[in-house]
């Protein structure tokens, strides 16, 4: 009888523990993880596989990532073929209960190629530019996708998630106005970027990308292309080169020396620079760079 009582007690403790346990989320990127934190708060535990200073295109699938996903409730994918490696992690995790969320659902995708896409065009994404989180308006779409997933997995806290989502959207709206005001002087400017990472940022803040350090997506800079860029920068009086933290400084610095433009290390993800601590401060950092560029 004592044994049965002890067993029942243990079961009750275990069940009580599981009822209070947090929703476990693994995200492909720090950006999705940060937005998930805004929506889930202390009801979730979130980890990111990609790191802010790493190139999300190239993440090596490691068994330790599979271990994380094996214990997770939700996996947040960037989608649009950016984190194609995530499928290997998800399959390797063998987690039948995992809810996989493609956070690009509902995004108005930029740069979707028309016609046939092949490797002669470089590492071009056939579904369009996948760096969509760099438009703060898309942050709302991502947050809604995450909120829906959380409600599916943890319907008990539906009201909590919805209220946190509303607070996040309000915060984004107020920051949007602030950021737009600060970058007003930069509107209409042209910049050079290393990769097509900042197309959504340009769209959000009204500047344009005149050229890329990469001759084609994923292709290393060449001397001939660098010379063309130098002429372009001089001809159009472009003053700013944006480099993601994980790309080599060599070609941008060399072009800057020859052309007179200034290279800015711009975080393309949360954690990319020390100041980009979360999704909001990521834009604070980027806006700060644009403001400096406008002077």
């Amino acid at each position, binding site marked *: 009888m004592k044994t049965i009582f002890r067993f029942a007690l243990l079961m009750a403790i275990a069940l009580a523990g599981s009822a209070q346990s947090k929703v476990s989320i693994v995200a492909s990127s720090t950006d999705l993880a940060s937005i998930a934190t805004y929506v889930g708060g202390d009801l979730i535990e979130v980890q990111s596989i990609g790191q802010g200073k790493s190139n999300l295109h190239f993440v090596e699938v*490691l068994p*330790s990532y*599979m271990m994380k996903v*094996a214990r997770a409730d939700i996996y947040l994918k960037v989608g649009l073929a950016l984190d194609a490696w995530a499928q290997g992690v998800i399959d390797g995790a063998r987690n039948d209960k995992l809810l996989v969320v493609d956070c690009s659902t509902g995004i108005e995708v930029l740069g979707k190629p028309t016609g046939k896409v092949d490797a002669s065009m*470089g590492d071009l994404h056939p579904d369009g530019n996948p760096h969509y989180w760099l438009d703060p308006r898309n942050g709302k779409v991502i947050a809604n996708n995450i909120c829906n997933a959380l409600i599916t997995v943890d319907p008990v806290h539906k009201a909590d998630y919805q209220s946190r989502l509303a607070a996040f959207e309000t915060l984004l709206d107020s920051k949007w106005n602030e950021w737009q005001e600060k970058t007003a002087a930069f509107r209409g400017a042209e910049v050079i970027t290393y990769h097509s990472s900042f197309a959504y940022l340009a769209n959000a803040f009204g500047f344009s990308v005149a050229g890329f350090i990469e001759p084609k997506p994923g292709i290393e800079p060449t001397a001939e292309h660098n010379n063309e860029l130098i002429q372009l920068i001089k001809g159009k009086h472009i003053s700013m080169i944006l480099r993601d933290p994980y790309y080599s400084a060599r070609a941008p610095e060399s072009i800057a020396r020859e052309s007179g433009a200034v290279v800015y290390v711009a975080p393309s993800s949360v954690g990319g620079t020390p100041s980009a601590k979360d999704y909001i401060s990521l834009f604070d950092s980027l806006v700060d760079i644009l403001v400096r560029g406008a002077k």
Partner: protein
Amino acid sequence: MTARKYLLLFALAVPGSVFALTQPDISAIGDFRGYTGNWIDSTDAKTSRNGNFNMRFEELEVVLSGYLNPFAKAQIVISTPGDGLEIEEAYATIFKGLPLKTEVRIGQFLVDFGKLNLSHAHAYPFVDRPVVHRVLFGLDGFKDQGVSMNCVLPTRFYSKLSFNVLKGSVVGEDEAVEDPLDGRYTHAPILTSRLNGFWSLSTKADMDIGVSGFIGRYKGRGAYGTGDAELGYRNLYARMAALDGKCKIRPNDYSSLTLQGELILNSRDLFTDVFEKRSNWGAFAFVDYRFRKRYNIGFAVDRAPGIYDNGDGDYEQNIPVERSNTATAAFDDKNATKSFALFTGYSLLEETTLFRLTARWTSFNISDSSRLVDGSVESKRGEFTLSAQMIFSLGPHKPHEF
């Protein structure tokens, strides 16, 4: 009706959208090589290939892979080594829905004995397969037909236990032969198992350690496999055990240092005039430094049992083929082949176009020439081989990582 007509009818019958959705990923990987070196035969004379610049299209691999349904996927690798056409791998993997998160693989596949064997040779940072693998597993590595099961163990770190029941081609004839004396087959399915653990030492360093075991009967009861009842009855077994390790350090996105090695202990029963149990060992290790993402440089050391005969056939070990049914050097417990290699590589973009260069010095340690067919040979001069390799891959299948 020809197969082509059937295919055409099938394509017409299946709605286009469904056909497109169910098409597998199709990839092709070509491996072209140029090589030169000094190769000496048993009379100490240069072989016909010595000093020449030789070229050969080593292999074309066509890979078809995709999901069969939400629970299973399949991969077929057809290769063209030399003039032939062979199925290198063809298997289905049920990876979801089984109890205890078990994964089951059925078909023909590279066996997870050690770590390196799981990768296709084009994924190695150097040109040639380690000599110890060529001696113990054959030129294509350890691949076999059968069933493989593995499960992830409930440990704090990632650990996996696999168990394979295989046909046994790596130690026996391709087709089992019925013993004339008792009607049993001359070799039985072999059993292999591997346990490996993976640890993240830090955010920039990982380590993988594995142990593997193998046992297989390559000759059945029929009198030491000879079919002679007067000699008595005894099964002949092959046994192997391996310890493998890999450590990868990534200071940043663009560089990594890989240290990898494997020790294989090998024991083979042999009946020539008397019953013998011969034990030997082989090992390899390499250090590969990848920098600026597209370049790599490193060195490899390798030790294999027996005298690895580079295809000239002058140094075959003194084991009658009908008694061994495998590379005869695997039975040599006295002599050894050692090599040292320097290698470098460059990939144009990702792994779609790779160039590799490997310089390999091979030395031969003959301490007992009675193990060789020509017992008068007391030494074999060392060889030097310089190999250049160009690999191109078309489609989604790329050399695997870690």
